[in-house]
């Protein structure tokens, strides 16, 4: 990895390059093309950008050939423990339902082979309404999840995962997939393996990385 020059040690024009790329990766809904910003193309400036993000508990993520940002794994664990930025119980329940229908089941059936969370089969809202939750609570949770960019409208009254999944680090992405397996097949062999590994992991926090390749 290229040694990072701190933002304030860069020439003013290069600082502007880094700050422009910072605003882009922090606010874009889709991966930012490398060619769009000098600080994404130039490895030295990209290292400075990654350092800026790290100063705020964030990481630079390479996603589908472009760049985005996400929370550092160790920082995210702290925020989750404090309940900051966490989803409500209803939102988590609806999201779990959507992910099982859109991703877990189609992957198990071989309908989709990509590991991208956006490669999903849209689920009709009527399917979600077969759950034990009331339709009013499902609708309210869907509205909030869509507003947060976690889910989006699919064709003909369906919903599907949205762009926020692109901001998951490889570690968080793996945790999410494991959680889906634990929910979908709690007594399966994979569930046992996951639980045993997590028991071991509880003694140590996740590594803190600075730049990560997620796909």
């Amino acid at each position, binding site marked *: 990895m290229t040694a990072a020059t*701190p*933002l*304030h040690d860069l020439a003013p024009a290069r600082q*502007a390059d*880094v*700050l*422009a790329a*910072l*605003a*882009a990766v*922090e*606010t*874009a*809904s*889709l991966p*930012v*093309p490398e*060619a*769009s*910003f000098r600080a994404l193309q130039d490895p030295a400036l990209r290292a400075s950008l990654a350092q*800026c*993000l*790290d*100063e*705020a*508990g*964030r990481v630079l993520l390479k996603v589908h050939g472009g760049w985005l940002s996400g*929370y*550092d794994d*160790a*920082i995210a664990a*702290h*925020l989750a423990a*404090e309940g*900051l*930025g966490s989803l409500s119980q209803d939102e988590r329940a609806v999201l779990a339902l959507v992910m099982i229908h859109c991703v877990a089941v189609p992957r198990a059936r071989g309908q989709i082979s990509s590991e991208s969370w956006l490669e999903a089969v849209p689920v009709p809202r009527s399917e979600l309404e077969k759950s034990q939750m009331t339709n009013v609570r499902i*609708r309210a949770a*869907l*509205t*909030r999840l869509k*507003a947060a*960019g976690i889910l989006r*409208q699919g064709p003909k*009254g369906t919903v599907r995962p949205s*762009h926020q999944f692109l901001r998951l680090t490889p570690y968080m992405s793996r945790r999410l997939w494991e959680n889906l397996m634990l929910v979908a097949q709690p007594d399966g062999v994979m569930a046992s393996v996951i639980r045993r590994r997590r028991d071991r992991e509880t003694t*140590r*926090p996740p*590594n*803190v990385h600075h730049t990560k390749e997620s796909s």
Partner: protein
Amino acid sequence: MSAVDAATDPRLTLARLRAAGVNPAPTDPRGLATLFAAASRAGRRLVDVSPPGSLVQCVSLGWQDGSEPDASEDTGVTRLEAARELALVLAAALRCCWPDPDRHPFPGQTTTFETIMRARSALDSHSVVIDDGNGATGIQHRRAALQRLREAGYLTGSDAELRLGHQVGLWSSTQVAALRRAYDLLPRPGAAAGEAAGEADESEEVNGR
């Protein structure tokens, strides 16, 4: 492996600020200076967004002047566009709470839900009644938009006493200057339905956090 010290790590403090939107500032001057320096190293700006009369100093994380997210179309960056109703309700609320365009709109003045809805009606010629797929139309749609603006930090308070939220406090002088140029297009409180002229979608430019 790098551990995070939950009590002192400024990275965690800034991440908390991002996740929460707004937090009380450290009460000791040294802690506050440390946080300002950390935000600057991160290429960000710590902004005082304390509401009027607040006994506690509240801060949020903004962009440095001149490095705000660029809303123009040729940057190669794809961002979600704000829903039209959201932009129209924000335009109405902004004008109701921003009586003096020579000043920054934050903190501005308080208003009520009814006043915002009347101002919003003045923009009726700009709106299309849209079924959002959840059965909400008309006034429900506008109320839902206002609630979303509250949740996102653009508005705060009860229906009887609404004011602009911390997200507006983060708007830089460049962004406010852009809005100031469109000030006369914003719907005045008490304007009759359809009275506002021109487009009011300038508020969509100010969407980065």
